[in-house]
């Protein structure tokens, strides 16, 4: 972050405003020749003329005379380029592609390293998602957008909610970090998504592998790290409005953001509102077991939703200190498919089909409030980072009350309520004693308090305290060979609270009589866990090829539901039983990443091998409790392997091809489900994308046409109660372009997308609705406009 800020400042120090009396102007765009992504802060210099590119890579030189100019385009980390233009009244926009300088800029030392170079040197196998990618690929939820990255998929429920899955593992095995603080929602539950506004995010780092070392418990399968946005430039004010419309679920969305900075102080703010109706599926009826649900006009009834988010931050930056305080609130209400929420089939007198926008029972409301502070202080060769966070996640699930078993019909609709407060503190010191070592040491402390309500019981009330300390060193053996090693210890205490049913159940006594008792579902228990994580890796850069190898041990503390559940999950129509004797999950993983990138093509492969000592798994047993099948949390050894393959090639300047494939194999090697895979295993799949840069067309500048074709193999590796899923092929198309609608302003960006072009009926094996045979969404046309100001 510091290096990035410094290099932008460096680029900027050359910038001066000049004025002349003439009327012509030169417009242009500077992009990375390889990634085709815009370069921010590049200098465009001629004799008396200067310009600097915006975050969109755009520059304008106004008021120039009618003559020939030679400009030099330069930016740190790139080779400078020169171009010559004749200033005429009707000039086309100039596009300049800069190539990254192959040699390190020794004279600027560490500050001269590009973000890309830093990532290449780090032995951690990670993937960086840019704002450009997010803008181009934006789907209905953040995770659906990210699922285009090989190795990343989602478990989604309906059209608006999804949670991250990395190489087939999800829920609490993937950590989502926002602004340095672990996002704490109700990750363990399958029927809700991430409560994060997907607008206003610039950079996301994805780690596909064991990352407990840096992120603590839960980062056993990977991390989605939503990084703080860049500090705005000095004396700047800018903003944007995003408008979005979608045909499939009649979505209307608006998001507006501003950011400004005077000298040292800066602030940003954003408001987002989205409202959508039921989504359409390419079928008029759903066959689930022996039931048939007729759909009205292909609408998956009661899947409408709305979302309102607000965020504000204020920050201070000087030479040695940077601090930003961020406040956000995400609020959503989502309906669930009415005929079967979970596995149980329900009928109702509610007229769900009277409108496709109303949200009836069952639905949930969720509110996530977050306040974080990130402060970094530079003291000589130390950089101290402090992250402080408070989060409140409040979720309520409402459904039509109905008697179940011995439970009489409840008097209200509030089936479940969870109210979780999380307090977090991270302290981290990055220290470079010399040019060879980068040592980082830190402490993470987290306290969590979870309260429950409603007439359904699933997890108990609990308090959880965790503390972890870590240190790692990245050692530069030579400029192309880097070694990283680190170790961490975590300790956690979990305190569960007892819970008794609010109604009586009939119990058989040993003497043959029966009595009515309030059954105890959870006990007062204090459990503590301690575990070591470690990681070691090497990276080697050889010309255009980067080799990385990383081996790590990660762990995950059992959750309160895994330990102390003891109740009926009516949605899943099963009895879930925890196990207080569970050990922390331990996993060993070997990651390899080989990447070869030249100007014209890039190819990479990232295989992994993973072994779980004691994977915690909700095992369907053959026994019943009050006529419901008992699912019991158990542990088993699991072997996993797989990886991703990616290739891209620039055929001509205008034509780019991308190919990626992902595969995961999992096998439980002992226990009750020996020989079976893990639940929600993604099938082998590939994504083929063509990008074609068209010529400017009337008011459309730089129109780019993309087609992406996804091929997924069938998934026959299943575990009860899953169903085998057929393979599928689906085509998505998009057109991204810019329009100069407002003179002398940054261009308006437009994106037209057509998802599922052929309205193909297919099933996504990792979708929550797959269990009840609901296919994926049908054809969807979406139009999005981003208007900067």
């Amino acid at each position, binding site marked *: 972050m510091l290096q990035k800020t410094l290099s932008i400042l460096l680029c900027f120090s050359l910038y001066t405003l000049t004025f002349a009396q003439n009327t012509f102007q030169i417009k242009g765009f500077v992009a990375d020749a390889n990634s085709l992504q815009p370069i921010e802060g590049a200098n465009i210099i001629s004799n008396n003329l200067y310009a600097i590119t915006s975050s969109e890579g755009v520059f304008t030189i106004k008021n120039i005379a009618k003559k020939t100019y030679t400009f030099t385009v330069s930016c740190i980390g790139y080779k400078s380029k020169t171009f010559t233009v004749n200033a005429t009244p009707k000039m086309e926009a100039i596009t300049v592609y800069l190539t990254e300088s192959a040699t390190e800029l020794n004279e600027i030392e560490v500050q001269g390293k590009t973000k890309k170079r830093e990532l290449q040197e780090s032995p951690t196998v990670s993937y960086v998602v840019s704002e450009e990618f997010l803008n181009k690929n934006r789907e209905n939820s953040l995770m659906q957008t990210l699922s285009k990255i090989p190795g990343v998929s989602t478990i989604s429920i309906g059209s608006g909610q999804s949670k991250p899955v990395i190489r087939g593992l999800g829920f609490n095995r993937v950590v989502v970090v926002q602004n340095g603080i672990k996002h704490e929602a109700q990750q363990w539950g399958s029927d809700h998504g991430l409560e994060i506004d997907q607008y206003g995010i610039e950079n996301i780092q994805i780690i596909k592998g064991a990352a407990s070392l840096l992120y603590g418990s839960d980062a056993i399968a990977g991390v989605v790290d939503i990084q703080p946005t860049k500090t705005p430039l000095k004396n700047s004010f800018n903003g944007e409005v995003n408008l979005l419309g979608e045909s499939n679920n009649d979505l209307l969305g608006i998001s507006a953001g501003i950011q400004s900075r005077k000298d040292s102080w800066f602030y940003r703010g954003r408001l987002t509102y989205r409202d959508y109706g039921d989504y359409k599926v390419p079928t008029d009826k759903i066959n689930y077991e022996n039931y048939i649900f007729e759909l009205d006009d292909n609408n998956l009834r009661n899947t409408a939703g709305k979302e309102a988010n607000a965020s504000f931050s204020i920050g201070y930056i000087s030479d040695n200190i940077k601090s930003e305080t961020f406040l956000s609130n995400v609020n959503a209400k989502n309906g669930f498919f009415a005929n079967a929420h979970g596995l149980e089939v329900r009928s109702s007198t509610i007229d769900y089909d009277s409108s496709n926008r109303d949200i009836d029972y069952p639905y949930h409301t969720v509110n996530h409030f977050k306040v974080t502070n990130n402060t970094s202080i530079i003291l000589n060769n130390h950089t101290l980072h402090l992250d402080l966070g408070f989060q409140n996640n409040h979720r309520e699930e409402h459904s039509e009350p109905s008697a179940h078993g011995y439970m009489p019909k409840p008097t209200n609709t509030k089936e479940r309520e969870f109210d979780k407060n999380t307090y977090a503190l991270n302290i981290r010191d990055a220290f470079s004693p010399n040019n060879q070592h980068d040592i980082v040491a830190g402490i993470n402390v987290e306290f969590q308090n979870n309260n429950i309500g409603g007439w359904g019981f699933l997890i108990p009330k609990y308090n959880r305290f965790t503390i972890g300390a870590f240190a790692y060193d990245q050692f530069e053996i030579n400029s192309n060979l880097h070694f990283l090693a680190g170790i961490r210890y975590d300790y956690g205490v979990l305190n569960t609270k007892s819970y008794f049913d609010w109604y009586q159940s009939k119990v058989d006594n040993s003497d043959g009589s029966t009595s009515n008792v309030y059954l105890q579902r959870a006990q007062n228990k204090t459990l503590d866990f301690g575990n070591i994580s470690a990681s070691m890796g090497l990276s080697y850069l050889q010309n255009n090829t980067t080799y990385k190898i990383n081996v790590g041990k990660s762990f995950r503390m059992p959750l309160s539901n895994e330990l102390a559940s003891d109740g009926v999950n009516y949605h899943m129509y099963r009895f879930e039983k925890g196990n207080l004797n569970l050990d922390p999950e331990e996993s060993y993983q070997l990651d390899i990443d080989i990447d070869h990138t030249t100007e014209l093509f890039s190819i990479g492969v990232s295989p992994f091998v993973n072994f779980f000592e004691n994977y915690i798994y909700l095992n*369907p047993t*053959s026994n019943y409790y009050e006529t419901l099948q008992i699912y019991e949390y158990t542990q088993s050894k699991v072997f996993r392997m797989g990886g991703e393959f990616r290739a891209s090639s620039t055929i001509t300047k205008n034509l780019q091809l991308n190919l990626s494939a992902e595969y995961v194999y999992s096998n439980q090697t002992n226990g009750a489900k020996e020989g079976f895979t893990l639940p929600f295993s993604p099938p082998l799949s590939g994504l083929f994308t063509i990008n074609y840069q068209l010529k400017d067309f009337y008011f459309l500048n730089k129109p780019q046409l993309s087609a992406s074709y996804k091929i997924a193999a069938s998934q026959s590796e299943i575990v009860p109660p899953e169903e085998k899923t057929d393979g599928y092929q689906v085509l998505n198309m998009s057109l991204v372009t810019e329009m100069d609608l407002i003179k002398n302003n940054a261009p308006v960006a437009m994106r037209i997308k057509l998802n599922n072009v052929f309205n193909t009926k297919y099933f996504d094996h990792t979708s929550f609705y797959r269990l009840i045979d609901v296919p994926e969404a049908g054809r969807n046309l979406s139009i999005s406009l981003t208007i900067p100001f």
Partner: protein
Amino acid sequence: MKFTLKYFYFITLSLLMLSCSDDDSVDKDDQKPTISINYSDGFPQACEQLVKGQTYTFKAKVTDNKALASYSLDIHNNFDQHTHDDQGEVCDLDPIKEAINPLIFMENYSIEGELTTYEINISITIPNDIDTGDYHCSYSVTDTTGWQSNTSIDIKIIE
């Protein structure tokens, strides 16, 4: 040439990765058991009317490819019409009403001896002091692997 070689190397590596993953040493059971009342002795049939005080024998046939494990029978009221059967027949339902003393029958049984076919046979006397009206009767069966199947039938209990 260099490019082709590298390409070949990567493809081979990824193919290797994929190819060595298809051996499953354990013979996995990936089939659910079946459950049916669609035979002459199957009881109750859709829309069946049961009289208070009478004794009935509930019968269903269950099968599995490997070994059956347990079954359960659940009879609960459907006075609020929250659920319906999967027998494809539409029964006439009484008006919606509140439950006062509904019949609750929930029993679990195990099937010993790793059988692949079995006939469920449960004798139930309908008590005299319970609410009459619409009821729902559901059978469930599991196999030793943990696969489950259900079937549900709409019935009516009358005076």
